[in-house]
C-alpha cells in the first residue's frame, strides 16, 4: 500500500515532511546527495549572512589595496574587481546538482537588499541566500 507522505512547505511540494535542518552535514555536495538518497524531503542549507559577504569584501579590498600608493609608477598592483560572495562556488555546485531550490526569506537580507555585493550575489545565482533544497 502506498501511503503518500507528501506535503507542502513554503509553496513547494515535498515528498515527505522530513526536513533536514541546517547543520554541518549539509555543507558539502556529497552529503547532500546522500541525504537525498536516504529520503530527505527537504534540506535547509546553512544560512549565509550578509555580514559574511561584507567582511570578506572588505578583506578583499584591503588585500588588493595593501600595496597601493607607495610609488609613483605602481600606484596599484591589482586590478579593481568586485567580490563575488563567500560561498558562491559551493552554492553553484549545489544548484547544478539539485533541481529545485527555494529561498527562505531572512528579514536581514531583504532589509539590506540594496547593497551592491548582495545584489551581485543574488543576480549571479538567481537565488537568495538562505535556501531550501528539495
Amino acid at each position, binding site marked *: 500500500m502506498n501511503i503518500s507522505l507528501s506535503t507542502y512547505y513554503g509553496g513547494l511540494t515535498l515528498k515527505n515532511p522530513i526536513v533536514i535542518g541546517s547543520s554541518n552535514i549539509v555543507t558539502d555536495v556529497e552529503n547532500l546527495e546522500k541525504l537525498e538518497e536516504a529520503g530527505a524531503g527537504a534540506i535547509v542549507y546553512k544560512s549565509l549572512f*550578509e555580514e559574511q559577504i561584507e567582511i570578506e569584501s572588505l578583506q578583499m579590498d584591503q588585500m588588493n589595496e595593501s600595496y597601493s600608493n607607495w610609488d609613483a*609608477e605602481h600606484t596599484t598592483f591589482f586590478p579593481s*574587481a568586485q567580490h563575488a560572495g563567500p560561498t558562491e562556488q559551493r552554492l553553484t555546485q549545489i544548484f547544478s546538482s539539485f533541481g529545485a531550490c527555494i529561498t527562505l526569506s531572512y528579514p536581514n537580507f531583504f532589509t539590506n537588499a540594496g547593497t551592491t555585493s548582495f545584489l551581485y550575489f543574488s543576480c549571479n545565482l538567481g537565488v537568495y541566500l538562505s535556501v531550501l533544497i528539495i
Partner: protein
Amino acid sequence: MESRSWINTDGNSAVANVAYGFSEVAAIYPITPSSDMGERADAWSAEGRKNIFNEKVDVVQMQSEAGAAGALHGALAAGAMSTTFTASQGLMLMVPNMFKIAGEMIPAVIHVSARSLACQALSIFGDHSDVMATRGTGFAMLASSNVQEAQDMAVIAHLATLESKIPFLHFFDGFRTSHSIQKIIPIRYEDMKGMLDMKFVEEFRAQALKPEAPICKVGAQNPDVYFQGRETVNKYYEACPAIVKKYMKMFAEKTGRQYKLYEYIGAPDAEKIIVAIGSSTETIEETINYLLKKGEKVGMLKLRLYRPFSVPDFLKEIPKTVKKIAVLDRTKEPGSIGEPLYLDVVAALSNERQGIRIIGGRYGLSSKEFTPAMVKAVYDHLENNGWHNFTVGINDDVTHKSISVKEEIDTEQKGIVRCKFWGYGSDGTVSANKNAIKIIGESTDLFVQGYFQYDSNKSGGWTISHLRFGKEKIQSEYLLNKVDFVALHRYQYIGQYDILEGISDGGTFLINSSQKPENIFRQFTQSMQNTIREKKIKVFAIDASKIAKGVGLGGRISSVMQTAFFKVSGVLPEADAIALIKKFVQKQFARKGPEIVEMNWKAIDATVAAVTSIPIPEETDKFAEVAKMVPEGSGWFADNIIDPILRLKGDLIPVSHMPLNGAIPTGTKRLEYRGVPGNPATWIEKLPFVSEPNVAEPYLEYPPSCSGCGEVPYIHMVTQMYGDRMIIANATGCTSIYGGTFPLTPYTKDKNGRGPAWANSLFEDNAEFGMGMRLAVDANRRQLKSNVQILIASSIRQELKEALQKSLTLFDEVNNEAKHHADQVKLLLAEEKKISKGDPVLNKIIELQDYFVDKSIWILGGDGWAYDIGFGGLDHVMASNRNVNILVVDTEVYSNTGGQASKSTPRGAVAKFASDGKKLAKKNLGLMMSSYGNAYVASVNMGMDREKTALAFVEAEKHKGPSIIIAYSPCIAHGYEMKLTKKQSEKAAKCGYWPMYRFNPDLRNESQNPFTWDGVDIDTKFEDYLEEEIRYKTLNLTDPEEAIRLTALAVKDNAQRFNDIKHLSETLK
C-alpha cells in the same frame, strides 16, 4: 547647455573614458605615466562595458609599443576604429608606424601622457620631448593643459580625425595632468555620440581592406612617383584646422565649454607675450591675472592645435601691440637654433609681423617646477631684451643660459586653502587624501586639486600630498609653494626635510605624535620653532596610532589623520566637515556592514575629541638637531649632490655639479642613513665549484628594492661571484630603478676599487646592449693580444717579456692566478714606460691593460623584458655564439609599472590586462632557448635550492657561448607577506610549478645528456601554493567558477612542463 554634477578624476581616467567610448579596438602596452589608460580600458572591457556604439571594446595587450602600433595600424587598415595609449620611449617605438598610418591617411587617435625621453638618464616625469620628436610623422597634434581639457580635447581629437582623415596625437603632461586629481564635468557618451556624424564612420568603414572590394594597399613607389604621392595629402592638412574648429564649436554648443585652436589670454594691448603649450599655460594664465591687476600689460598665446599649424589662426590672436615674444618649449633639442615651438613661431611671424623680437627658452623638463615667479622672470627677461635660448627653473652656471628667478609670488585665488601632507610609504596617507578631495570635490561647491609625490626608494619612502581647495577653478599647475596647512604623519622627518617650507602666516601645523603636548614643541628644529613663532603658526597634535588601534583599525592611521585634518584645516566648517566624512564613510563602507561603518565613525569621534592644541612656549632651550643625511667626510659628490637630494633640495643643484653622462660613483647607497645592507652571499665560499668568490666584501648593498624582493638575492650572489670583473647590462624595470636611480647606487666596489660596472640602455634592447658590450671587450682583448705578441717579439726587458708570455698562456683564464698576474704585468708595463721612448705598441698595451683578464658580461632584466618586449633581441643573442650571460629575474608580471600581465604570467593569475585571470599558460622560455642546442639554459629557484642555483650561475659563466638563467623571483605583486618568500619558493618547487633544471650543451661534447633535472619530487598540491597569493586569491573571490576552471588548466600546465623537462632529462642524448 548642461548642468550636471562634477566628478573628481585624474587625466588618465578622463581620457581613457573618452577613448573607450569612441573605439572598437585598443592595442595597449604599459608605460608610465600612460599605463592607467590601458588598464582602465582593459578593466572596462573585462566588465563588459559598452562604447558609444553599444559594443564592448576589444582591448589587446601587445609585446611592446612597436607591437601596439602595428596592431593599431592593422586594425585601422582592416576597418576598426582604434586607439592606443603611450608615452616617452614607447611613443618612439610607434614612430615608424605613425609615418605609415598618417601616410595612408587613416583616422586614429593616440593618447599620450607626455613624458621625458631617456637621454643621460630616463625620467618617468613629464615634458614634451617625446611628442615633439614625432612632429614630422604627419599626425595632427592636439594638446591639453588640465584634466577637464584632457577629456574635452580627447573628444575633439576622436571627432576631428574621422572627418579630416588625419590621425591625431592627443597629449597632456605626464603626472601633472595624467595623475593630478581635479574636479571636472564629465562628458556623457550620448553627447559624444550626438556630435559624431555617422557618415564619417561609414566612410572609414568603406576604406577597410576586404576581398569584396579588393585593393592592393601601399606597395613600393619609385623615384618617378614617390614625391608626387607624398604631396597628395596637402589639401587634407590645409582643411584640418577648420575641421577641428568646427568640432570645438559643436562641443561648446553641447557642453558650454568653448575652446580655440590658439587662445590669447591677457591684456588686449600687451607688448610682451609668452607662447606656450600644455599645463604650464594654466600657471601662466594665473600669473597674468595677477600681473594685470598690478597694471602690467602682458599676455599669452596658448596653443592647442600644434600640428597642422594654422598660421592664419595663430596670427589672428596676437594683439597688434605686441613687440616681444618669448616662446617656451618643454623639450630640448641640443644643437638646434631653437626648440620646435620657437622655430614654428618664428616661421609663422616671419612674413606677416616683422619687427617683433622673438626669443625661445626651455622650462619644466622632467616635471621640473614651473611657478608664477618663473613666469614673471620670463616677462622680466623679455622686458630687459634678454637673450634667446634661455632656460628658466634651473641654475646654469656653466653656459649661463638660465635666467634669474626672484622670490615666489602668491598668485593664487583669494580664499584658497593649500594643504601639504608628509606621509610614509604604506601608511595610507595618499589613499586618505584621495578620499578627502573626493569628499570635498563631490559634496561641496569647492574646486579641488590633488597631486602626489613619492620617494624613488621602493620601501619605506616618503610621500608628499599636495592638495588645493578653492572657490574658483584652480589653475595652479605646480607644487604647493605657499601652504596654509601642513600635516606631518611621521615625526621622524623633523630635521631631515624642510617640513614647514612655505607655510603662510597664521597657518596650521598638525603632527602625529605620541608625546605629551607640552613636550612636542621642544622636538622641532630651531628653524621650525622660529617659523612657528614668527608666523604665528597654530600647532595641533594627535596620537593617531593609539586611536586607530583603540577602535580596531590597526596600523591604518590615515582615517584618523584625515579627520584631524578636517577638524583643524578650516577647509570646511568643522561640523560640516565631520558630517561629510561620516556620510562618506557610510557610503564607502555601507556594503561592508554596519560594524565597519561604526568602527570608522568611532575613530572619527575619538579623533575629534583627541586633537590637541600645542602650547607654544615663549622660550625654550631644547630643539631637535638638523639631521645628517650623509656621513661627514664622504667627499664632494656626497656633500654637493647626495646631501641636497636627500633633503629634497635637489632643484638647487647647479648645472656645473651634474655629471656629463649621468654616471655616478658606485658605493654611494651606503652613504644614506637608512635601509638594510642586505645579505651578501657569503655561503657560496663553501661551495667547491665556486672558484673566485669575494665574500669578504659585498658588491651590492642597501638595495632600495621592496623589502623581501625576490630578485635581489640573485644579484647579491652573482656580484659576489664575479663582481670584480663584471659588466652589467640592465634592462629598464625594477632592477634598473633600484640599481641606478640618481644619485645613489647599491652597486659598490672592493678594497681594490673594483666592482660591477653597470649601465642601462632601454627596456627593449637589453640583450643587444649586453651583446655589444661583449663585442667591445672581445675587440679590445684581440687588439691587446696582437700588440702583446708584437711587443714580445721586440727588444724589451726579459722580465717583462716572460711576464707577457705568461699573460698569453693565461689569456683565457679568469682565476685568481690570472688576476694576480695581470696586476703584476701592469706594474712591469708602468716601469717599461718610464724607460721606453714612447713606443706606440707599449702605449697601446697600457691603454688596454685592463683587458688581460676577460670580463664577465651579465645581461639583467625582468620577464617583461625577456618574455615580451626584449624577446626578439634576447632570442637573437641566444642564437649567437658570443659569451654573454642572461639573468632573467622572473616575477611573472611587469612589476615596476604596477603589475601588468606578461607572457610569463601563469594561467589563472590575476594581473592588470588580465583582470579576469590570465587565460593562457606561461611561456616556457627555458625550453625554447634549449632548442638552439648551443646555449646554456637553467631554471633556478634560490628559495628552494641555493646550491643548485649557484651551480647554474657558475656553469653559465663558464660556458663559452650565450647562457640564460631564469630565476624564480617572489614579488609584492604576487601579494603575500614577503617574509614568507622562502616557504613560498619551496612550495613553488614542490608542487611542480617551478621546475628546476640545467641544460648544459658542453655536456653533449662529452656524450652526456645535456639536461640535468634539479627538481624535487612533487609532494604539495598546487592549490597550497595558490592560496597564499593575492594574484590567485582575487579570482577566487571575484569569479570562483573561472578560478576553478583556470586552476585545473594550470595544474595541467605544470604537469606538462614538469613532465616534458623531466622526460628530456632522462632521455635526451
